[in-house]
């Protein structure tokens, strides 16, 4: 009997499909059009110590095949989340992973401490791909030392499941992966968006008010697959693959290069029913391939090549 159940260390999911942070809101918004139980879990919009207003508009620009965003982590803040949202989603038949994004380490601790006091949170995704104000806007995860320190400080205050979400905007993701593992992360989420930009050639204006933004959607899949493979070869904790997923075949590809679960992001905007479609596609595939559990697929890439750093152009 094929089952969609997967486990990410201490976290058990009824489906390998999760919703990516920023692409499923706080869990309520899509509930009337798509049943959340099709998701193994969802990651909330990244939450900060207070309400953040986000960046000035325009914040979105569609490109030829993908999407650029510069939302600026606009969110309601941890208190509003605990009071107004959490009580309404705890009955959902899916895991609730709270994404946390802050500007300095102390704030991560503060947000997690508050969330530790309430029920209904199944784990945290530390969004350490966001700019770190103390380090002049470099992402935490671009610095392995900071990565390890941050993860271990959060680990010290929580026994819940923790995943660290890393940026692909680095030469090699290996050291950040190892630093997060070292710090005590239960899993890694790879990848966040890629720095990109779009301009309107007619008006000569940038399409995003902040000029650059995060690139997501189908065109980033090849980059994400490479990063997942790099991460898989660097650590022993499970990896959650993210980037450009729109089909069950994409999901299988992420598993083959080392993922133990995946997140769907931008595609949800277009197709909120995607998780259900992916589950069905995966089940059919597993039956025809006689696969009982998707964990049999993880890292099954047929190769004797080690991971290579850099593009061997």
């Amino acid at each position, binding site marked *: 009997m094929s089952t969609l159940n997967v486990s990410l260390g201490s976290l058990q999911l009824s489906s390998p499909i999760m919703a990516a942070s920023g692409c499923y809101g706080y869990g309520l918004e899509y509930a009337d*059009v798509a049943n959340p139980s099709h998701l193994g879990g969802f990651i909330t919009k990244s939450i900060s110590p207070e309400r953040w207003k*986000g960046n000035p508009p325009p914040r979105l620009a569609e490109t030829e095949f993908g*999407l650029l965003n510069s939302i600026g982590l*606009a969110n309601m803040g941890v208190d509003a989340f605990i009071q107004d949202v959490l009580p309404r989603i705890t009955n959902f038949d899916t895991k609730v992973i709270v994404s946390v994004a802050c500007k300095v380490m102390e704030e991560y601790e503060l947000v997690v401490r508050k969330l530790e006091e309430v029920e209904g949170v199944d784990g945290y995704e530390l969004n350490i791909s966001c700019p770190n104000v103390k380090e002049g806007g470099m992402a935490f995860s671009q610095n392995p030392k900071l990565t390890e320190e941050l993860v271990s400080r959060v680990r010290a205050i929580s026994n819940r499941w923790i995943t660290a979400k890393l940026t692909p905007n680095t030469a090699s993701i290996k050291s950040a992966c190892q630093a997060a593992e070292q710090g005590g992360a239960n899993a890694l989420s790879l990848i966040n968006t890629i720095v990109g930009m779009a301009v309107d050639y007619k008006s000569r204006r940038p399409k995003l008010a902040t000029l650059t933004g995060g690139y997501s959607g189908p065109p980033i899949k090849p980059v994400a697959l490479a990063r997942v493979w790099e991460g898989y070869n660097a650590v022993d904790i499970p990896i959650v693959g993210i980037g450009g997923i729109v089909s069950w075949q994409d999901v299988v590809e992420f598993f083959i290069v080392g993922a133990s679960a995946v997140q769907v992001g931008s595609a949800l905007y*277009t197709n909120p029913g995607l998780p259900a479609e992916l589950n069905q596609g995966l089940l059919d595939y597993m039956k025809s391939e006689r696969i009982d559990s998707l964990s049999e697929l993880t890292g099954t890439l047929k190769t004797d090549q080690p991971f290579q750093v850099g593009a061997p152009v």
Partner: protein
Amino acid sequence: MRFLEDATVLRNTEIRPGIWSMWVEAPLITDISRPGQFVHIRVDNQYLPLLRRPLSIGRVHETEMELVWRVIGKGTAHLARLKSGETINLLGPTGEPFKIDKSSEMNLLVGGGLGLPPMVYLFEHLKEAGLNAKLLLGVKNEGAIPLADSDTILTETEVIAEEGGKFRHGLVTEPVVEYLEQFEKAGISEHVSIYICGPWGMIAAMQKVVPEGKYKITQVSLEQQMGCGVGVCQGCAVKADGGETPYRLVCTDGPVFDLFEVEAPK
């Protein structure tokens, strides 16, 4: 309450050069939709273009809904290729509808170009409710009127064309000013409601000619690049007062805002 509904295309016609009107059968959405709301349309099953496209709900007759659009790029061009009998996935109704006050003695509806469709919906809705309404439309020229010549509602629409032709010459704010003077003379200003949908230039002009605080309702419908259409992505922010931050979301706080809350982008 929203639905993801596969609507059936009933007819799809190019009513002016580059302007299309499509009637679709969408019982779930039409049943609960209200003027000012929109649908978020999946134009392609291959995620090409990646995102849905928002279009205002135009006229609604029982289970049928009209969408009217100008072909701009990939998404609207895709829509123009749809044939009767094909289906198209709609997410809707989305957004907050226009506030309607039954005690309004007069409702002044001002559309600019492709801002007309929601005004037509509102106009028909008000008429059905037995309320007074005037429908003004500002366009560049006859070719930009988002109504077919055969549309009976065209006869009820006061068209003001920048290039004149067989219509009143000028900008739509000119008759607006005249009407506002009439209402003032008749002493009904505070029982008048004003609704606007059009480009930013027109909105800014309306902010100048309409005195703040004098009328019952002064609402405007805005556009912004959208991702999700349901408040998830935080992408459709505009600068607008009245929320907890300087930004509000077109898809859920809007698309309808108070005329004096909103600020034109630089």
